[in-house]
């Protein structure tokens, strides 16, 4: 069992610290960045990567299907805000629900298999969803996607609470949603369920042998992951105003996975690091060299070959070296159990 790609049990102190860090990042971005859209994207994809991390780092499930849930979220919010205009919070809730439902369906079939077979299935389902979306232009706009998605302000009746017109105003909204979602995901991670997932990841057979229903546990992980990813998709669609077919493409799933892996699967906040790295470096590099994804591919290979704890792990090692703390062998020795 390779311990590198694993989430450790965290203490409450560490979780509060991470939440504060997240808050710090959320506050820092408007002060240091020009583009409100880019800042929103960092948070949005950070959420998606966290959803992916719940499956990969916590449960040991490598899913190429995250694009399905992201796309479902986008399409749902587009339809609910344009065709049958619903109040935005309700529309958002529906998008989350659709992400969860899609994940339940995909999960139910894919979970029957394990290991690489499971991974292949998620990829095949992702392709399937792509072709479904492509071949139903009435519902999804086909190749063109759905456009002109409004961004209604948060309002109660006629009273506008929070206008969301400008990129930074929208960022404020996204930041709120992000922090709440992050806090909830932290709770899930620290819960009995989250801890049981770690056992499933560590040793499936044993987890089954001591009484746990593996299929249902994995399914629940999938549903939560799908819900979070659907939320991300919806937020993205509202930001850009379109729900493109590309959101359901292989590349979206790949991108989310890459962010998750590069950030590091050791804890949830690392996923935000991954999305920030991908998007900010990408934004900078793409002006210099349009084929910057090449570098990303190389980074992915490097991480897989050697740097398996991702950027977060790299940061941790550097910090430990700086502060002179020596961690002999397995890092987990200093974790867990110390309440």
């Amino acid at each position, binding site marked *: 069992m390779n311990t590198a790609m694993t989430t450790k049990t965290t203490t409450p102190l560490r979780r509060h610290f991470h939440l504060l860090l997240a808050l710090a990042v959320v506050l820092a971005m408007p002060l240091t960045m020009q583009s409100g859209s880019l800042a929103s994207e960092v948070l949005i994809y950070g959420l998606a990567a966290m959803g992916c991390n719940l499956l990969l780092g916590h449960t040991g499930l490598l899913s190429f299907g995250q694009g399905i849930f992201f796309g479902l979220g986008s399409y749902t919010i587009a339809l609910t805000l344009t065709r049958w205009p619903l109040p935005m919070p309700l529309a958002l809730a529906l998008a989350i629900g659709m992400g969860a439902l899609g994940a339940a369906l995909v999960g139910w079939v894919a979970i029957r298999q394990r290991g690489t077979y499971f991974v292949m299935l998620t990829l095949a389902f992702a392709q399937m969803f792509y072709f479904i979306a492509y071949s139903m232009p009435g519902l999804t706009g086909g190749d063109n996607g759905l456009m002109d998605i409004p961004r209604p302000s948060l309002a109660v009746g006629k009273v506008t609470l929070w206008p969301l017109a400008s990129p930074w105003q929208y960022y404020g909204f996204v930041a709120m949603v992000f922090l709440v979602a992050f806090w909830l995901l932290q709770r899930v991670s620290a*819960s009995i*369920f989250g801890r049981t997932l*770690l056992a499933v990841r560590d*040793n499936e057979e044993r987890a089954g042998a*001591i*009484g746990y229903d593996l299929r249902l546990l994995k399914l629940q992980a999938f549903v939560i992951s799908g819900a979070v990813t659907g939320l991300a998709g919806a937020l993205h669609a509202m930001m850009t105003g379109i729900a493109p077919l590309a959101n359901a493409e292989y590349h979206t799933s790949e991108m989310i996975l890459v962010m998750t892996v590069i950030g590091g699967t050791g804890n949830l906040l690392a996923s935000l690091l991954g999305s920030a790295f991908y998007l900010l470096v990408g934004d900078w590099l793409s002006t210099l060299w349009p084929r910057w994804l090449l570098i990303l591919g190389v980074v992915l290979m490097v991480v897989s070959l050697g740097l398996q704890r991702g950027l977060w792990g790299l940061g941790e090692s550097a910090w430990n070296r700086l502060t002179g703390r020596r961690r002999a062998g397995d890092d*987990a020795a200093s974790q*867990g159990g*110390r309440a």
Partner: protein
Amino acid sequence: MTTQAFLLEALGIEKRYDKFVALAGVDLRVRANTVHSVIGPNGAGKTTLFHMLTGTKHVSGGRIVFDGHDVTREPDHRRVQRGMARSFQVTSLFPTLPVRENLRLAAQGTRPRQAFDAWHPPVGARARDEAVARVLARLGLERHADTPASNLSHGQQRRLEVGMALAAGPKAIFLDEPTSGMGIDDLDDMKRLIQGLKDEHTVVLIEHNMNIVMDISDTVTVMQQGRVLAEGHPHAIRNDDRVRSAYLGNMITGGGAAS
């Protein structure tokens, strides 16, 4: 000898893997609060029998009744709730998790619905602290409670293996070669550990170490090539000709106080 009820009755157990017959009709009856050992040469089907009894794999034929319930079709996680728990021949722990967490998970396995609780952390009443502490004490692993399982020594890991089954508070505990790979010092600890289980549990044991088998068993079942060869008290088995020839005669030594 007082006749205790049979806690476990397995009748006509068969297991086929395509053309290969691993078990060709095995009967096993285990009385409550006894230590019942299953021995036999390699390939006899002992571990396969365990898989059938605990539900790790499905039978091809036969019936298993545990504590009055027909559990033949039930998967392993259901049988855990019935009161069956097992340890594995090849150590199978949760390597990155601390010893305490390993045991907590095993204890919680008896109430698997709690595992879906995605809101509450396992603290307070939900942490099964007393159960875990009791098992830790019994295993003698209190000092290592916070060590990741993969960092334990082999002997300690084998003890934790038994502990995982214990933590579920089972009625019947199935130990598959608990002493495999152990050194002499650890062996005595393990022997005492298993012997001490008899009062509160029923122990079904696969072992190659005849010293332990002869010393602590109430009943010994000898298997060979997927069938039961002989069954009885340890001293009867030791003197049984069929068993001697199955083992080529010279392996059944040991057993402290002879009958």
